């Protein structure tokens, strides 16, 4: 995948070339699936399993979906959720991952936590 499109601040796309081996279609671990259901953005994340940390039982964050209106405001909120998902898997943010893991199998608790931490 040496070529990709970059859509800039002005909304214009240009073809870019990269040598990065990371630009495969698989994407990083914090990726999600996205689709439109009518005028609703659906964002779904896979489960995170076997979360183990010293002194804690194995935990899990179930696969879950968050929905937003398909407009500028909804897209901004979806970005914030993508940001949370990225952050929770970064070094130094283990507490964030555990905060979700402690609510891991309760979908409504997971959504409440998103609401609490989203700007």
């Amino acid at each position, binding site marked *: 995948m040496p070529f990709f499109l970059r859509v800039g601040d002005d909304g214009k796309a240009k073809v870019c070339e990269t040598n990065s081996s990371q630009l495969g279609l698989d994407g990083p671990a914090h990726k999600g699936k996205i689709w439109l259901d009518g005028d609703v953005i659906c964002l779904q994340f896979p*489960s995170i399993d076997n979360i183990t940390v010293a002194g804690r039982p194995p935990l899990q964050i179930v696969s879950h979906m968050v929905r937003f209106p398909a407009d500028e405001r909804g897209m901004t909120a979806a970005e914030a959720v993508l940001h949370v998902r990225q952050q929770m898997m970064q070094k130094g943010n283990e507490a964030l991952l555990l905060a979700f893991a402690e609510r891991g199998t309760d979908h409504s608790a997971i959504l409440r936590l998103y609401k609490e931490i989203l700007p």
Partner: protein
Amino acid sequence: MGLFGDLFNRRDREIAELMNPVLAMKLREFVLVDDDPSYVKHYFKFRNKEGEDEEFITVYRRVGSQLEYLRTMSRRAVWGPEFQTLSESGPWSMTITHLIEQGQRLSSNTRPTRGHFASKIGPSTPTQPTKSEAQTVEPPRSAETPSPVGMDAVRAFSSEVRKNPNGYAVWMHEPNPGEFVVLLVTLDRDGSMTGGWSLGSFSSRKEQGAFALEVARELQISLNDVVPASEQKSAAPTSDDLTYSVAEMDNQKFPPSHGTIWLDGDEIWLGQATKDFSFDGRSYHIPGSMVCFARAKAAREGLLNVLRKERDLWAPGNEASVKARLIAHAEKLRR
């Protein structure tokens, strides 16, 4: 007092009775139930205005020479034959306070009763568990290692646990190195253990964790790991001691997505997989793509447009029109 004073006083009483229904009932029986080494209970039987009996039990735990309030349970005809635990923060809170005060007042002049049925309602110190029951245990310091009881035995607890899910928890404990025990414990209002059952002992932490998680899900209660204070870490966990695995995503599976998306730095990436299909003996190819979008209004609109086009392209409908759309799209990309 006059007419208005009389009316307002009557209104005040009605409101008070609404808030605390016990005020409108007649106390017919009070029993100081005192034959358990760990618990003392105050049993009240009232007769309400409808002529029905309503029973309450306030439960206390012995802490040295003091009694610590645990919970209030009640049995009313409309609720069925079982005692239910009353919510402390709900509409019963004034009644509970009233019963606690009334119980303290009455118990000072009441002789303790042994063998009353209320002794077996709510928490009690078990005497001789049968083999078919989960075994009672001391707090986690105990080194008992019973065999796993299995989920059938766990389900036997479910009706009682669901009445008061905050009063129970699943605890994982390692009383001795290499001995991994799962406990179902009863908790007081402060979350301290008041009793419990050992649900099983396992030879690995993985088995212990899997079973504990299954029990916590089945009973819909919290799961905790009991770590001796000497082993507790004061610092937050670090990546050195945290591991996890992320499940695979299959884009072909329902729901059919328009692509995978993630954030990288200050850009949003959208990856779309290659799609191949054939109609009437002819193959068509829609190549995959990778697009990154700036986090700006115009770029967000661009991303939404991509998603809308995908939605419209794959929209279910009559087979001929879907086929025509896909062929037209593939032909356009080929050119």
